């Protein structure tokens, strides 16, 4: 069964000055798949995600969205970013706006959605992530787990085709990790295409369709979770896995 391809990256290269951060990276993400990116800090995981939604500009290589090659010279990147949602480690909620205002901001400003509709959809999303009683509070009053769920709802409000998660639970107290992972699992079960940087191995096994191990800017190994975790082929993967387990 061949699935529709949602994101493909070909021979991606990116440097910051002299630092070569992404080296000939190839990656394909099929529709409704969850790809989990693992690798040591500094291996280029964030940079890869950020290149996919053009927060960072690649130096070289190709990026395809639903089979169509997208580039800054040929496409309006603001439109591309609407189709690729992103959830950050530190939530990056807008502190001067209430929870609901955070969620409806982009639909109002970018999609020019009528306010009634934006509010209705925004509330539905907040209900969905379990924050139906928090519409009118400011983010500063929320726990980390609640903040991250608002951030997920905010991203979903743009109805993205793909969601990128950059260590969404790393900044959370351990007891709050579960609620965020549960929200992400729910999203995956509904068929959202997701690329997730995380070291939550339980999540990777349970929810991930594929696991990608990155080391020093390269994809070293790629496989389904059971394979990769139980029988890693590469020595470096073994070392990394034993270092985090």
């Amino acid at each position, binding site marked *: 069964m061949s699935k529709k391809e949602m994101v493909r990256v070909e021979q991606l290269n990116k440097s910051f000055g002299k630092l070569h951060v992404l080296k000939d990276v190839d990656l394909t993400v099929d529709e409704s798949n969850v790809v989990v990116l693992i690798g040591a800090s500094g291996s280029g995981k964030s940079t890869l995600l950020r290149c996919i*939604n053009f*927060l960072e500009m690649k130096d070289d290589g190709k990026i395809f969205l639903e089979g169509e090659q997208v580039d800054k010279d040929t496409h309006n990147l*603001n*439109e591309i*970013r*609407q189709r*690729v*949602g*992103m959830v*950050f480690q*530190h939530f*990056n*909620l*807008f*502190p*001067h706006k209430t929870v609901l205002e955070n969620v409806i*901001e*982009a639909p109002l*400003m*970018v999609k020019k959605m009528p306010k009634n509709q934006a509010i209705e959809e925004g509330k539905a999303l907040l209900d969905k992530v379990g924050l139906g009683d928090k519409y009118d509070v*400011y983010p*500063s009053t929320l726990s980390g787990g609640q903040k991250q769920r608002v*951030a997920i709802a*905010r*991203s979903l409000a*743009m109805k993205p085709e793909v969601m990128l998660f950059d260590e969404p639970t790393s900044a959370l107290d351990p007891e709050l990790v579960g609620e965020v992972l549960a929200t992400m699992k729910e999203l995956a079960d509904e068929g959202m295409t997701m690329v997730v940087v995380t070291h939550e191995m339980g999540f990777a096994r349970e929810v991930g369709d594929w696991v990608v191990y990155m080391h020093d800017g390269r994809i070293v190994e790629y496989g389904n979770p059971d394979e990769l975790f139980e029988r890693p082929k590469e020595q470096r993967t073994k070392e990394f896995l034993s270092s985090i387990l």
Partner: protein
Amino acid sequence: MSHFFDVFIESYPYFLQGLKITLYLSAASLLIAFVIGLFFAILKISNIKVLGWIADAYIWVIRGTPLIVQIFVLYYGITEIILIDKFWAGAIGLAIHSGAYIAEIIRGSIQSIDKGQMEAGRSLGMTKLQTMRRIILPQAFRRAIPSLGNQFIIGIKDSSLVSFIGAQELFGVSSSLGSNSFDFLTFYSVAAVYYLFIVLILTAIVNRIEKKLARSD
């Protein structure tokens, strides 16, 4: 002391007139200064080098010369070209002066906003301009309020220098009354009381705004 109060009461019609001009002068100049400041702050944070240099040059000249010199240069410079009254010459001079300081305050507060805010806006498909206007600037202004309030207080006190090109604001009034009676000390002391009064009220307003904003944070 009773002499002071007698003078204070007798002279109040003149001083109220001066107070009015001081307030108008300050309000007009600070409003213009705010627009100038925002403009140059944005030049400075733009990624276009030449614009940054222009802003740097402006700020450097203003910070490197005395306000009184700026007012005179502007007054004699402008009146060479167009006929402009003292009030507006003074207001524009003050605005150009405060604008440089306000530009630095706003630039600093914009740059103090976490860069994740811009990224969050951009990742949702908002343009740079939309994110600036809707996300960054509202937070930056809140953060700038104490410094802006301080700069406004300085601006009000600095407006006294416009009397040197003949504006009859508070200081101008007290100088005139003083030289008529040779009772400079008393009239300048009365002026001081008026200034203290304005600053007291402005400080209270700024504090209230700060408290109100702190609550929603």
